[in-house]
């Protein structure tokens, strides 16, 4: 009992404290590839703190929907963070069917983020939300195929049961299916978090952006909330992916937390490398890549349920 309370406290602490660090690691990796020193690891934290102290500008076109966007995005990601297990530890909230809630929470966040962007009446933000709507719709089936495969492998209907179950012996027996799944889910991870090759968070041209262009008009504390929610989303989806790709577990509770933190940092490193060696895809290629991810995940499902 006390153990589970301590684990929940560590879980919540990590979910609050660690997400921006991933962005710092990605930034540092990209800087290293480019031969620069780069911003400090903690730069994203400084940015968010700075934004929290700034004043706000609201467009005269906007209504309450614009203000609801960041709030809902943050609240849904926070609840999703409580559903996903970190490393070998089960999540604080777990019940049968929670994977469906997990998938749909992001839909709620997306609905309000897109509505907030469209509330400004800016054509650029409209473009961004149209892209976000289409791409995330294409990414949705992939996540469900992954959930089916995992549910079949573990015989469990909740995220903790499905994800904690994955270990090296499961990998040994179903390596083909899991390999396909890792491929599919990595594509979804990059797409959902608007990383290269889908979107360039650092681009300077509004015309080509997806996520960053949707939040162009948010400023000050609202923008801080959005930045933090985006980091948390990367963290939450990353935690899901890390279970598939790096299923380390030592048996020692404390060591498991350490392993989880290390694997998350490894993930950030990999994302940084991908961003350094790849260019953004042409917009027209993005749906094709997303469909490829769906096919990978669908084949992994076929392999485990035949």
């Amino acid at each position, binding site marked *: 009992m006390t153990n589970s309370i301590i684990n929940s406290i560590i879980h919540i602490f990590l979910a609050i404290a660690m997400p921006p660090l991933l962005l710092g690691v990605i930034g540092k990796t990209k800087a290293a590839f480019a031969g620069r020193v780069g911003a400090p690891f903690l730069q994203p934290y400084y940015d968010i703190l700075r934004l929290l*102290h700034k004043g706000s500008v609201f467009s005269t076109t906007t209504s309450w929907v614009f203000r609801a966007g960041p709030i809902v995005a943050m609240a849904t990601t926070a609840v999703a963070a409580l559903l996903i297990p970190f490393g070998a530890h089960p999540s604080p909230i777990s019940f049968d069917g929670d994977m469906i809630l997990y998938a749909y929470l992001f839909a709620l966040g997306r609905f309000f983020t897109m509505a907030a962007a469209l509330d400004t009446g800016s054509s650029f933000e409209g473009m961004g939300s149209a892209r976000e709507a289409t791409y995330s719709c294409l990414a949705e*089936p992939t996540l469900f195929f992954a959930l089916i495969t995992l549910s079949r492998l573990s015989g469990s209907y909740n995220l903790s049961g499905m994800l904690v179950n994955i270990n090296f012996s499961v990998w040994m027996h179903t390596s083909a299916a899991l390999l396909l799944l890792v491929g599919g889910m990595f594509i979804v991870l990059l797409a959902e978090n608007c990383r290269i090759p889908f979107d360039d968070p650092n681009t300077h041209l*509004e015309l080509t952006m997806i996520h960053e262009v949707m939040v162009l008009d948010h400023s000050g504390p609202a923008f801080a909330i959005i930045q933090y929610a985006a980091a948390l989303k990367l963290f939450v989806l990353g935690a899901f992916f890390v279970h598939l790709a790096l299923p380390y577990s030592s048996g020692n509770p404390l060591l498991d937390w350490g392993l989880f933190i290390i694997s998350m940092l490894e993930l950030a490193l990999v994302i940084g490398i991908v961003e350094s060696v790849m260019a953004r895809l042409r917009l027209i290629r993005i749906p094709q890549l997303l469909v490829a991810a769906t096919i990978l995940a669908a084949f992994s499902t076929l392999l485990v349920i035949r």
Partner: protein
Amino acid sequence: MHSFLQGAFDPALVALLAALVIGCAGIPGLFLQKPGPGQILSTVATMLAALAGVPSALMLLFSHTTTTWSLEWGLPFGPCELVIDPLSAFFLLPVFLVSAAGSLFAVGYWPAAEHRATERGLTFFYGLLASSMAILLMARNGVFFIMVWEVMALSAYFLLVTEHEREEVRRAGIVYLIATHTGTAALFVYFSLLAAQTGSFMLPAAGSLSALSPYASVLVLAAFIGFGAKAGIMPLHVWLPSAHANAPSHVSAVMSGVMLKMGLYGIFRTLTFFHDPPLLWGAVLTVCGITSALLGIAFAVAQRDLKRLLACSSIENIGIITTGLGVALLGVSSHNTPLVYLGMAGALLHILNHSFFKPLLFLGSGAIIHATGTREMNLMGGLGKGMPRTALLFMVGSVAICGIPPLNGFVSEFLLYFGFFSQLKANSLLYLVFLAPLLALVGGLAVIAFTKLYSSVFLGTSRSSAAAHPHEAGVSMLAPMAFFALLCLLIGVVPQLALSLVSPAIATFYPALASSTVSAEYGAILGKLSLAGVLLLTAAVVVTLLWRWRLGRAPVSSAPTWGCGYQRGTARMQYGGTAFSELAVSVFNGIMRQRVERPLLTGLFPCVARCSDVPTETLLERIIVPLFSLAGVSFAFLRRMQHGLMHVYMMYIFATLFILMLWAN
């Protein structure tokens, strides 16, 4: 067997009386000279009747009782039997709720003072439609069922053609009339075959027919065509978008929220007759259901007409319900109790949910049309500022219909997903699980369709002068919408409550469930879901408070939207609805189709030209219309019989009577 005297305080009798009162509510208005009092009287009567009808339907549902009345009506089809069992009582709930809410809405939306010519007929047929649907749920004599069915179909037709001076409305009316009578023809086959099987026109008792007899499949096919045409299951949906788009909005709310469900009720009722249905039936229903869901929402994404989009999304929701029913039927065939429960609970709860959020959205669209005078989404924009209450309520409906937590649409989809996943451990019917990614795709497309709808109507700035100065809807229009929005939130946050509503109705479908514990098991899971919903709302409140606190500490100013350096942005430069869905339409090209209409440009200085994207209806335009034109040409010789000569018509009638007499002897 109840007699009328014994059952004076019987909930079933109250429900029946309520149905009759609603049916008569429009009659006094027909005879009153002054416009106005008739409409008010009808609204008050309808609302009082619903106030009595809803609790009695709930009592009947929870008491698991079946009430039967038998009337000797002297027709050669056996006695006219009226029965209310839990399944009927469950379907009565949306009939009463939606018809009362729509009736109140009409006072503000279609006031008698402004619509003198049409209001009387509209009010009368509206009551008749609601009443016939309630009686239909009680009818257990096949012939009486068809009579009530026709009253329902025809009163819906008269409601639909209220604005018959518009060509588009007349066309929608004709398509509807042909579609509904094609369905009725299938129902004639269905009831005749049923009577041939059982020896009477009374509907058979639950589980009394064998599914193995050669007639059974023909019977079910006829029922599926007849009832499916009314429900709008693909490919029998062709009438639906134009009919729902062209009716007055409160009528659309009743047609979409309740009348479609009468078709589903017919399918549900038919399936209860059989024991041990073959797997094929469930498979056909499931495939038709998921196809309707996917194609319906894909069509919705491409629409530019506000109400057409909502109508296409009705096809989607009916598809989701049919999928659930198909899954439940597969469960019955394979004796899998949890699967039956999850499929049925998902389907029935989605019926209830759809009858809350769809009327909310249709009534909302009525308020929008009332304020702007157009249904074209590309001409609207920025209405949220002029009509903030409608905007808020419409947002609730949009989120609910996308099946997003913490509102009611999510709960029924959750049960269905759980049903799909539940077969992974069981090792039978494994392939059901492939429905889950498809339903996820449906959900994703629904988000595109409804962000498109909401943003092009309420957000940004207005795109035309018509929508520039909207006025907020009156109390009589807002109150019904607020009522439905509250119900959406209530079921979303306390889903266990809704599950206890559907459980008795499921027991009618599959009696083995009455003694099973699955209901309590899934109730507990929904309890967790409700906690998660509360957690979500709490998280939203906490984030809001934190933000408020930071906002108070730094200057807040307002400025125009950031134009990326461009200084003279206009409302026309906003992303419109068609632009928003353009990318999705191009990705799903082939499923969604748009025709681009543009004039041929010639010469060096072409004059002003317009280019527009028109969503096409492939099935209707390419197959059905040519087919019916062909039929029209080949049966042209029959027109010679229809010449308007009264004495020849009388001869036809006498000849028919004579033949009937010969046949009866």
